[in-house]
């Protein structure tokens, strides 16, 4: 389904959070050029049940 609300581009970049740690910002842009971003929030703790921080099995270098 292609329309003006469809995603045209996803772009990630590294940012530094308020604790001084690196994290990720992702930009999403639609076909008609509307764009915004989201930042991954940081926490001091990571529970065992929580999600793993970055993909380790993707084979990306």
């Amino acid at each position, binding site marked *: *389904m*292609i*329309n*003006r*609300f*469809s*995603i*045209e*581009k*996803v*772009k*990630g*970049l*590294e940012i530094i959070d308020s604790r001084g740690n*690196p*994290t*990720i*910002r*992702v*930009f*999403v*842009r*639609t*076909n*008609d050029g*509307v*764009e*915004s*971003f*989201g*930042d*991954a*929030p940081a926490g*001091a*703790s990571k529970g065992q*049940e*929580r*999600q*793993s*921080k*970055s*993909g*380790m*099995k*993707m084979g*990306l270098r």
Partner: protein
Amino acid sequence: MKRAVDIANYIIDIVTRNRCKRTRYKSTKYLIDIDSTENKSKLGGNTIIATSIAALKTASKALGLEVFKYIAGPRLPKIPIPLLNIINGGLHAGNKLKIQEFIILPIKFNTFKEAFFAAIEVYRNLKGLISERYGKIYTAVGDEGGFSTTLEETRELRSDIYFNK
């Protein structure tokens, strides 16, 4: 974090291209499905949450709506009750408390303002109490703004909070 950035640029970019993201839940669900692991170890939690937030904000922007209105949909949005994190333990503080966040809930107030001021009053009184009883140095705050006291036992602390009422 380089890996998370690469995943967003080379994988999520391609798999989400031309996908409609009018509903944020669908796009997040889509990423979770693509990842297919229990704990999101392939794409990574950071990459997924950042993309999800970005998709949500972009979708609201495309429709000309504030994010909260977009989330609420046709429902009338209600202002939430402010919860205050008044004492920090666990990994949010350097003390021995096992519980990480002691949170108070100002319920049964008619307005946000009343609830918020009541919660602040408790927080301030607690500060005075800790300062008086243990010394001003123990009113230092932890990661989430709660006091990081020297108390070791959750039990002691609970009586302090109640006393403070």
